[in-house]
């Protein structure tokens, strides 16, 4: 009946407008009764909150992060999180990430997917379908 979600998707972007727009897309794609969606404007808050989610026996399907953020880049954030949770997968959103850096990160599998800003609904859905099981997606997506 009331199923407690066993998995989560984390989204981080320091731009509120972007996170607003992104969250609507995510809610359209993801079945929020099965998947916890958490959004963070500050990567530091995300870093302290993610362990709490994992402690609740909720598996993190992937983390979607911006590249340029105050205090830390998406790459620094990713590496910090990977140090404790190497199994976490990542999608990076960015309008200015260094191409060669991104290529390198994709090559060594630190980063799973990269989406350049501005993106479209189908850009994001394409990547999400590669990471999220079909039963956790909305049928309309």
């Amino acid at each position, binding site marked *: *009946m009331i199923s407690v979600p066993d998995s989560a998707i984390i989204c981080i972007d320091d731009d509120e407008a972007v996170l607003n727009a992104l969250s*609507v897309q995510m809610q*359209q794609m993801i079945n929020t009764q099965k998947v*916890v969606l958490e*959004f963070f404007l500050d990567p530091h808050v995300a870093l302290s909150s993610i362990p709490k*989610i994992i402690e609740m026996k909720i598996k993190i399907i992937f983390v979607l992060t911006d590249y340029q953020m*105050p*205090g830390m880049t998406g790459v620094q954030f990713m590496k910090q999180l990977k140090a404790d949770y190497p199994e976490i997968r990542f999608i990076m959103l960015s309008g200015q990430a260094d191409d060669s850096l991104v290529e390198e990160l994709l090559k060594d599998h630190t980063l799973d997917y990269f989406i350049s800003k501005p993106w*479209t609904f189908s850009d994001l859905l394409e990547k999400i379908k590669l990471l999220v099981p079909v039963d956790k997606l909305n049928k309309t997506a």
Partner: protein
Amino acid sequence: MNQTESGNASQGSDYQNSIRILSESSCLFLLVSEDGEIKDVGSLWSKVTQQAQLSNSFDEEFLLSGYEDFVDLKNRYTKGNVLFFNHRQTGLKFKASFFKIDLGHVFIVNPIVNADFPLKLFRMDLNDFPDHSYIAESIFLSEISMKGLNEAQELNIKLNKKNFELKGSLAKVERLKLELEEFNLNLEKIVDEKTKENISLQANINEIEKFVAIGEMTMGIAHDLNSPLSAIIIGIQNLNSSIEFLMENLVFQFSKEDIGFALQHSKNVSSRSFHSTLQMMKERGEVQQLLEVEKGRASNEAFELADGMVKVGITAEDRMNIDKVLSHPAPKILLDLMFHANIVHQMLTTISVASNRSAEVVSDLRRFTKGAFEREKIAVNLLDSVNGVLRVLSSNFRSNINFEIQVPNDIEIQAIPREVFQVWANVIKNAIEAIGEKGGTITIRAERSDRDIKVEFENDGPKIPEEFLNTIFERFKSSKGGDNFGYGLNIVKKIIESNHWKVDVRSDEKSTAFTFIIQS
């Protein structure tokens, strides 16, 4: 004669005057001049031999035939077996003696110049001639002389060899010298070329510096515009799908009043469309419990209604809206309407905010780029120029860097705007690098006096070591090896020099400050 032949046989080691009996039927003949030079051997020798074998005496005509060049034939005379003659060209006196001994024939020519001439081999005395014992002695001495000759020859060979080697070495040295000269010429050519290259390189660097500034601006603009544009593009897509859904599936099912309610509600909820699912789960639990306990709804229905309510921002405390929804004949569809009305409102707000921000970027940019391509000095507002740089560089800033701007808004400086940008940008980037990961404050202040304008950039980063302070404006002198450090400050120096500004740098444990003095 005696006195002219005053040599001493015991001194006969001098090979120059020596003779050697080589075999029974042959003899050696040397024609030796005063200075010891061997003048001739050759054909005369064979003639002597032939003649000597024929008789005990020699036919001087025969002997000297073919030697007209050498012997002054007119003045010759003979005494016994000795022939005296003068050298044709020099007039030097020579004598030649011939005698036969058992071992062979010897023909001797010795110069006669004066009493001091060292005739070392023979005591040529006509009265003694032929004296066999004397001859024998002379042969003995000759042998000694030959030994000397051999040694000398060996020495000469060695010397020649050395000489040859030396000549070889000299040739090598000559060759090296030539190569060196050639190399030097090439080097000069290369230096010339490199100098020319450097001149054009410097021109290129100046061009590149302009492009670096433009590149940084572009990067800053790209970053500043990319995020709001993303929000606008996605916002419109979201808006579009929600409006389509409203139009196709919902609107026709509702009264004007319902739609008015949904629109009004959407304006009261947060413009934030993102919520924590975990927080929503908690809220949903509370609403669900309320619906089950107070409203007597079955848990399935209560869950679905609670889910819809939480999604549109209705919490357990919001009893008025809960009742309003529950009183509707189709509450779940009403919640759908409210949900999409919320999205429409949120996306319109998002698009509006993002558009305004984009417009702000453009406006800042326009203010900043006013005269960006100006080559002449114009009046540049100091505060605008500082804000323009901060705007453009904002993508480089960490959130732990705080800016304090204490610049009056009415100070103007006469300058080329691009150069002002480059100076402020490089000093600020330098300060950000100096502050490092720890974070800190950069204070920018300006004041005006009658004569000049003072602009100061102070940061609370670590002290710059004194050895770096002196060379801080030199290119590539960096205490950190940062990307822009040093290089950027070198640009600052060049611009300052060309504008006759002054700059002072001080650094202590508390802070580091760059102070610019600009004539007003």
